[in-house]
């Protein structure tokens, strides 16, 4: 009982209620003491008149209460006591002094409470009362990219961020890019995303969309454990209404499966390491492809959309492709029942004779939000000779310059695309054992790669020249974390400058370079210096997450587009698709691609660069350097 009482008292004080009660009690006591001056007969008639207790009300309790309260609240009232007898003067002086103390204490308390409230608000400790909001759980470099994406699409729902970092830290990061986030309504809260109570504090149950970002790697053996805990809580959550759109990021590919299990196999998982490594490797395989990915993930350009077209039921995929003049149908989705619930299945680049079923939705690449279709075009077969089915590109000799924790994922991805015997040279500050350690830990053997590790500083001109960069089919500059410190782009920028100078000095063009940057602000520094694909990986991952949060089926589509062994976006010589020296329409190229079981997505010409999803009836004069951008099954020699 005593302990219970002590707990209640301590809780009262912790909440600041007791202080107010104490002030109120003393206030009441002082007033009552003051009132006694009348009841013990200290006032004579003259004093009563002087003090305003003239009997207007009752010449008793209420009049004395008025007198006492007046002296406690207003120290100036003492001045009105001139001429009163000394006991009245003494009591009114005591009341005024007590009043000064009490009012001072009260003002201090109010000020302190207000201050605490402000501090609590700054710390982000208060409760969020929202419905239909977008909840971002966690904090890393991707978050600002996600916000930028949402600002670009004029996103209206309020965005609440709960992260295990200080609100000021988040505020500073957001303030530094204030112009990029114009129009967004952002609420910041500090707290653990792996704590159920904290998730309820940000109204998880009423959220309309939830994006869980990976915690920044800390060198832990289990860098994704925080994200996995969050996923377990999301899986246990009972939603008050419609289940929100969910997407979660983990950093490492090998954690994707456990994260999938933690989320009840109902939440799309994005492994940022996997996405980054796949895009980097794809760009090594198909120089220039970064522009296609940039268009694909851009909020303003061609996007992948999924829409219902019941009128097209029974039409073949081949004929549907020709009915959309300015969009490119790329596949179908449908719902599959599984033991864990429902799953959206997806098939891209389906055969031209596949007829659309009633329960299927069309997947399109389009710049329009609701693409419309026209009448059946029944295109003529063009006299194109299928010489050879274009093969997937696999460079046989690649140099990786720099090191970061994704290098094992990059090597695994290269291994998956290689048939055998691809030579990979790694130049960085780390040793062979350090490069191979993560692969050894997960027991991965790179049976198709021959790896040579050269330890040296990639920003040292002599070291770089001794690598003989011209000896390779492709170079990949990784955001270099081997030096420690926070600016991984520093080495990349310096190495790029060094390579540019080597190229100038030797008068020989370097092979194609893929450059990984973490800060999008550095892109403009490197553009145009080399024949290069520049991939800003933080932007890539954040756009990936933001898009999937708005359309969950994109998770499966992007996974397929980037993975080895399935469909891929490829660049093939336009001359593989047309024998004609005359101009050809994109419709004819679409048909030529269909004959090769591919989907024509766009064109890349020397003159126009990449043109994705051009009008089907637009004519193109294609030369030997021009390429067709296609969605194709990966085929290796």
């Amino acid at each position: 009982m005593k302990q219970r009482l002590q707990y209640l008292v301590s809780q009262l004080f912790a909440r600041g209620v007791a202080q107010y009660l104490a002030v109120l009690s003393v206030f009441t006591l002082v007033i009552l003491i003051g009132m006694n001056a009348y009841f013990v007969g200290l006032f004579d008639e003259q004093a009563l008149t002087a003090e305003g207790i003239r009997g207007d009300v009752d010449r008793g309790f209420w009049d004395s209460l008025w007198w006492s309260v007046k002296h406690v609240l207003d120290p100036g009232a003492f001045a009105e006591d001139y001429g009163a007898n000394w006991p009245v003067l003494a009591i009114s002086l005591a009341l005024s002094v007590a009043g000064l103390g009490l009012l001072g204490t009260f003002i201090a308390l109010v000020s302190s409470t207000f201050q605490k409230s402000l501090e609590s608000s700054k710390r982000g400790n208060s409760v969020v009362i929202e419905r239909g909001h977008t909840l971002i759980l966690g904090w890393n470099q991707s978050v600002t990219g996600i916000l930028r994406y949402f600002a670009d699409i004029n996103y209206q729902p309020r965005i609440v961020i709960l992260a295990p970092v200080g609100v000021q830290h988040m505020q500073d990061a957001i303030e530094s890019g204030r112009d990029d986030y114009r129009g967004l309504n952002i609420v910041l809260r500090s707290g653990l995303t792996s704590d159920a109570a904290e998730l309820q504090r940000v109204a998880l149950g009423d959220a309309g969309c939830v994006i869980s970002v990976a915690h920044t790697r800390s060198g832990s053996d289990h860098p994704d454990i925080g994200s996995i805990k969050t996923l377990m809580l999301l899986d246990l959550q009972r939603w008050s209404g419609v289940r929100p759109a969910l997407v979660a990021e983990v950093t490492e590919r090998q954690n994707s499966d456990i994260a999938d299990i933690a989320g009840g196999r109902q939440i799309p998982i994005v492994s940022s390491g996997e996405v980054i490594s796949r895009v980097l490797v794809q760009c090594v395989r198909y120089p220039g492809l970064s522009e296609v990915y940039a268009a694909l993930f851009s909020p303003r350009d061609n996007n992948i959309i999924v829409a219902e077209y019941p009128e097209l039921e029974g039409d073949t995929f081949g004929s549907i492709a020709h009915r959309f003049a300015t969009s490119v149908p790329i596949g179908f989705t449908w719902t599959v029942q599984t033991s864990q619930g429902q799953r959206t299945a997806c098939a891209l680049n389906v055969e031209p004779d596949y007829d659309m079923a009633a329960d299927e939705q069309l997947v399109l690449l389009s710049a329009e939000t609701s693409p419309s279709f026209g009448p059946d075009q029944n295109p003529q077969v063009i006299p194109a000779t299928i010489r050879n089915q274009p093969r997937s590109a696999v460079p046989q000799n690649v140099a990786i310059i720099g090191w970061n924790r994704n290098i094992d994922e990059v090597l695994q991805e290269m291994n998956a695309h290689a048939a055998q015997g691809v030579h990979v040279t790694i130049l960085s500050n780390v040793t062979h054992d350090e490069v191979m350690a993560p692969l050894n830990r997960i027991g991965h053997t790179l049976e198709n790669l021959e790896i040579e590790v050269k330890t040296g500083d990639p920003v040292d001109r002599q070291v770089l020249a001794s690598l003989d960069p011209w000896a390779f089919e492709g170079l990949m500059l990784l955001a270099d974390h081997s030096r420690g410190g926070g600016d991984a782009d520093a080495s990349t920028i310096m190495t790029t400058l060094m390579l540019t100078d080597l190229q100038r000095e030797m008068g020989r063009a370097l092979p194609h370079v893929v450059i990984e940057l973490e800060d999008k602000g550095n892109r403009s520094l490197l553009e145009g210096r080399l024949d290069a694909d520049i991939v800003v990986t933080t932007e890539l991952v954040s756009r990936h997450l933001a898009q999937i949060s708005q359309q969950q089926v994109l998770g499966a589509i992007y996974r397929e587009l980037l993975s080895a062994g399935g469909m891929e976006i490829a660049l093939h010589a336009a001359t593989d698709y047309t024998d004609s020296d005359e101009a050809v329409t994109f419709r004819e190229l679409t048909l030529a691609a269909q004959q090769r079981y591919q989907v024509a997505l766009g064109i890349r010409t020397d003159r126009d660069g990449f043109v994705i999803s051009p009008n089907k009836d637009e004519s193109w004069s294609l030369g030997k350097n021009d390429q067709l951008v296609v969605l194709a099954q990966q085929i290796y020699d």
Partner: protein
Amino acid sequence: MTTILIVEDNEMNRDMLMRRLQRKGFETQIAVNGQEGVDAAKNDSPDLILLDMSLPIMDGWTAAGVLKADLSTRDIPIIALTAHAMQGDRQKAIDAGCDDYDTKPVNLQRLLGKIEALLSG
């Protein structure tokens, strides 16, 4: 109803094959790696197996060898599927015990012809 076991690690390829075969009246089972494929074949005795060759845990060539060496599964026809277009791959698949071979992208009419031929033979 004829049951076809699809052994394929790529989810999208698996979904597509399954859907197209189901729409043609086949019953389908799935396995996502070679070992799962061998286990499913032994347990469920499908009428035919479509076996991707590039599989995790146990590749398709090894799985085909295991299935053809086992009395309970040796008579199940196997069609190898591969995205590798080298001439030697066909012979390699046949040598491993596969009854036929097809390359990706899958042409369903061509594949159905091979399935019918093996089932009727």
